[in-house]
């Protein structure tokens, strides 16, 4: 006696959270059944393996049917086929778009293209996440990217509106989209210690301060094909950053800057002498990063540069996070006292964000 057909359809669609998780994690029905058996559910409920198999199949079929709708979450809200309570709808969407930390670190900053998709096999092997799950996550990134890339207005709001994600998840996706669009390099070995959260934090700061949308200068002609407001860095701003070069190129200015910083921090810094000796190198590093951002290649290497030019030197001298904070605060503030320097606002826009990023990046 073999079962040809076996279905269960409820007027309210039954969603089993545990099975949903297994499905999202890309397990096959048989693997999922095995995992459920291991969870001890048979003992708890007195069910048989056959019942579990049939139940799992049912849920998988339902999820498979729902997947099409999950690709455009507003559709899930308006569709008539599955009657699902709103709280459950929200859960379905949120979980579907949730991604694995290990996976996102592999893909962050990469072009979301077919080429990358081919690498998913390797990522799957490396991270231990099933290929199916990798595909779903990758496709989610790509889908969100495609939808919001050309859109005006706040990136987070756009994502929230079109994918009905929670605020937290929408912010993460904003970071992913931002990184993918600007192709920031995150995969280098020296960046491995950074978490997705670190990058997402930086992305948020950069979106807030360095994009066109950040300055609130909406293009005068709304139809003009200007850069997207939140996704692309403000080109003009990057161009202007060249002006900061004077801070290291002008020997007097550099010396004055150093003396101001040293005067203010003397006695307050645990690593004062190291700071004093390294000041010029550090300052050169930070300013040169700014000056190079006109080239796309250098934009991509932003995080590599920051780690190489600032984080690593400080770390090798055993700066504490507090030392870094005090230094960066003073370093940015002192520029205001440099009489010969005329780009105060530009400096603040640059350094304000960079300071935040560096503090976040400075850890083991």
């Amino acid at each position: 006696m073999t079962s040809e057909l076996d279905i269960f359809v409820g007027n309210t669609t039954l969603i089993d959270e545990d099975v949903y998780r297994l499905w999202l994690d890309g397990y096959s029905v048989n693997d999922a059944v095995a995992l459920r058996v291991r969870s001890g559910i048979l003992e708890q409920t007195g069910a048989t393996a056959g019942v579990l198999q049939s139940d799992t199949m049912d849920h998988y079929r339902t999820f498979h049917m729902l997947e099409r709708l999950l690709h455009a979450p507003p559709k899930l809200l308006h569709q008539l086929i599955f009657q699902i309570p709103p709280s459950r709808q929200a859960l379905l969407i949120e979980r579907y778009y949730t991604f694995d930390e290990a996976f996102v670190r592999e893909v962050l900053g990469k072009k979301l293209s077919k080429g990358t998709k081919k690498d998913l096999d390797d990522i799957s092997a490396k991270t231990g996440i099933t290929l199916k799950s990798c595909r779903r996550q990758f496709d989610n990134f790509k889908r969100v990217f495609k939808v919001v890339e050309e859109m005006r207005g706040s990136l987070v709001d756009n994502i929230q509106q079109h994918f009905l994600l929670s605020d937290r998840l929408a912010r993460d996706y904003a970071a992913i989209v931002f990184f993918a669009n600007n192709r920031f390099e995150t995969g280098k070995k020296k960046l491995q210690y950074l978490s997705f959260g670190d990058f997402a934090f930086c992305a948020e700061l950069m979106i807030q301060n360095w994009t066109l949308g950040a300055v609130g200068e909406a293009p005068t002609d709304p139809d003009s094909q200007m850069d997207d407001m939140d996704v692309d860095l403000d080109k003009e701003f990057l161009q202007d950053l060249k002006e900061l070069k004077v801070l290291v190129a002008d020997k007097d200015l550099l010396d004055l800057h150093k003396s101001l910083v040293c005067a203010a921090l003397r006695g307050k810094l645990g690593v004062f002498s190291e700071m004093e000796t390294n000041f010029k190198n550090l300052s050169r590093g930070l300013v040169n990063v700014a000056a190079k951002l006109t080239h796309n290649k250098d934009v991509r290497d932003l995080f590599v540069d920051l780690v190489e030019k600032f984080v690593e030197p400080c770390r090798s001298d055993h700066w504490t996070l507090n030392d870094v904070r005090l230094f960066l605060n003073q370093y940015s503030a002192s520029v205001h006292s440099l009489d010969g320097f005329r780009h105060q606002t530009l400096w603040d826009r640059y350094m304000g964000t960079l300071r935040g990023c560096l503090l976040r990046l400075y850890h083991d």
Partner: protein
Amino acid sequence: MPGKLKVKIVAGRHLPVMDRASDLTDAFVEVKFGNTTFKTDVYLKSLNPQWNSEWFKFEVDDEDLQDEPLQITVLDHDTYSANDAIGKVYIDIDPLLYSEAATVISGWFPIYDTIHGIRGEINVVVKVDLFNDLNRFRQSSCGVKFFCTTSIPKCYRAVVIHGFVEELVVNEDPEYQWIDRIRTPRASNEARQRLISLMSGELQRKIGLKVLEMRGNAVVGYLQCFDLEGESGLVVRAIGTACTLDKLSSPAAFLPACNSPSKEMKESPLVHPPSHGCRSTHNSPIHTATGSRLTQNFSVSVPTLIYTGMGSGSAGKEGGPFKALLRQQTQAALEQRGGSPHRFCRRREFPFLTLTAFPPGLLVHVGGVVSARSVKLLDRIHNPDEPETRDAWWAEIRQEIKSHAKALGCHAVVGYSESTSICEEVCILSASGTAAVLNPRFLQEGTVEGSLEQRIEENLPVGCGFCHIPYDELNMPFPAHLTYCYNCRKQKVPDVLFTTIDLPTDAVVVGKGCLIQARLCRLKKKAQAEANATAISNLLPFMEYEVHTQLMNKLKLKGMNALFGLRIQITVGENMLMGLASATGVYLAALPTPGGIQIAGKTPNDGSYEQHISHMQKRINDTIAKNKELYEINPPEVSEEIIGSPIPEPRQRSRLLRSQSESSDEVTELDLSHGKKDAFVLEIDDTDAMEDVHSLLTDVPPPSGFYSCNTEIMPGINNWTSEIQMFTSVRVVRLSSLNLTNQALNKNFNGLCENLLKSLYFKLRSMTPCCLCHVNFTVSLPEDELIQVTVTAVAITFDKNQALQTTKAHAEKTLQRASTDNDELLQFPLELCSDSLPAPAFPATKEHLESASSNSGTPAAQRATSVDYSSFADRCSSWIELIKLKAQTIRRGSIKTTVTVEKASPMGDGNFRNRSAPPCASSTVGVVKMTPLSFIPGAKITKYLGIINMFFIRETTSLREEGGVSGFLHAFIAEVFAMVRAHVAALGGNAVVSYIMKQCVFMENPSKNQAQCLINVSGDAVVFVRESDLEAMSTQQSAVNCQTSCPGEVTT
């Protein structure tokens, strides 16, 4: 020109991409009613078109309004080639024709295609203006309300219950027409959907006419079914109970506004048939003229002329009188004398009610289950000389049912239903019901002024009256063990009671009930035509017998003494017959404690064998004890003195029972002496019997926290909370074809059903404590080795803590009452006589006399019955014969019945925990609940919006791509639910009650990657208000109405 139908197409959304190049669609809509079609403009390049059309107006007869569905087709405009159809929406506008139902249909409807399923949605507004034409009801029956609910709908009061109405309509199945070879599957499916929609409309209209003739205004317990007879045609038939209902809030009784036209019809039957004869009713001999029928039913080019066309003309003249004649003949045969007015004949013919729950006081006594089956060969060719074949078949069966009821001393049959099972050209017709004695005062016309409730006031409730035997103790139709009622001690009751109705609300029950199923398979040789029919007829009595034995044994095993909601389904396949009986077992306090089950071995001298037997016996006894604990069956101890009255047999019996529990040795001894007589001794004389006993013990009780029943409410639970989950589950298994035996089949089938139940319990585990109510199993045999089981039920949560208290209180109350009303026995016969004589409704006295006289004759015949099945050439035995063999049910009656003071609320009087989900603020789709029950726990139904009766076909030629058979059917059922919900929401409703999936015919051809499925569902669309909300805003009723009646605004 009595009506104007107005339709507005507002918008579409989520349309499929029809133009691959642009990834967009140029959609427009065709709106068709009858032969008139309107089109909207093409909305270019959008998947969410905003047509905002003008109002399309159709000026039509109200007859058409009842028959025709509104057909909306969404198409993709194509400049160079034919326009592609995206899908269709059929809207039944019948609900707009009742005065109290919906006033507008407005909302998002899924656009459905029989090949692709749901493809987007369309927003439509439909209104009807009925003109105040005096001739309004001439041919139509607008205004007659239909309810699927098998009890008096919650917000109505029954003024008169008129009785049985039935009708059937036949046509050729489009799937089997020659044209089907050249048209696309889509065209064929759509032709079928449309035809069935038309036939349903016509059938409903005709039933409505009959109701008007009887001066009723509603049909309750309306059950419409399709018989797909293959090449011999398509039969749509319906039965129901005609009533005059009165809306509870309105002060005056609503009388049908149609007296004169109905009379007119009655007087001139020649005029009547032409009005619908043309629609290929069964009674028009013109049917066989295939060509002309085609045009009549499908042509869009031939307009209304068909109504007066040649087809119907001749049909009318011949068919009409013929039918009338036939009626008269049957009537005469039915011992009807005296010039009874024509309009009562139908009711007199068959005093059947399709109701399963009754207004207090109506049900006086219950006799037992009566059923009849008949095996018929479908005629391949429509025989033009015998257009009434199907009608005659059913009439024959009903006749038999009626005579069975009479033999039980009953003049009526309640909880009546009919069904068919078809395999190739063989068809089994089945009918079953519960023989009953009804209070004739409810069925009289004329005394309209008093409501039912008022009329029965004088009878004080007891809660056991319905159990009392209706027949004469001295002339029992079959051997039965009678005792005095354990409740009132005044009347006789049988030891076991089987019924097809719901448990009366006032019945005193001990403990909880449970679902009891008997399952059975029988192999049969493949055969053709008559040989096949004969083989089936020969098998049927044995199957019925075994089903009955199984039921009885399982009931004993549960320690219970009565079955409610009994439904026995016999399914015929190519090489086997399947029997599935479902019922809800309960322990009725009025009936005696059931005895145990004893096992008797054939060879008592063999020591090891005896040991084995006693081991079995111990297991059975343990199971009974366990079940009693599980279902909380601890009836109050009854002292000998109280029972100890004159009937010797019951005493002997009770003694025997007591001895059972003592020791197994003694038991064996007793067995031997009583083995031949006692129905509850299982003789193990061969391995088959051993298997049977084993299978008894394999039924696993539901896991803790779960109860199940197939009746409306679970006996013993009355504190429902508001969470409900309706579901449908379908399983198809393929039997391994290697030398199948009956035992192997039985085991497989048992396993299938048990596993299905286990799966349900597992799936719904998060709802515990909960009860599966109205569990409805349907078995079909789609192919040689395939068994399909379909289950629809609803899981309802309940509050565990309050259950016990309320039942106890109730039981105590009734016991107290029982002691107070003892003396009215003698009055009863007189009362009944005086009441029933003037009543034209049920010639109760006459039948009583007759049954008394015939009863005196029957016992002799019965004694000889043993197993004389040779007389069942093409007809199978009915329950009653079997009942004669086995000790069954019965009682004799007092007219006492219980009126519960509280308004028969199945939710009981406990507090409800409101567990409903938070309101869906963010979602734009309103929640529509669906339930097979007639009520919604924790809520009050405020309005009935009309009947939902939908038929869908889905077909695929890419089965694998759609996830195989499971994926295909899962999606289809989900779509059907969605379409039902959308229709209800558009009517302004928020729930479907009495929902039933009447048909789910699934056919597959995996090698061709194809599958097809037909589904027919029905129910009542309603508006309900949560009781908690009701209290909170009792003064703001208007706000609720407004909110619920304008879902269109909510969703746009």
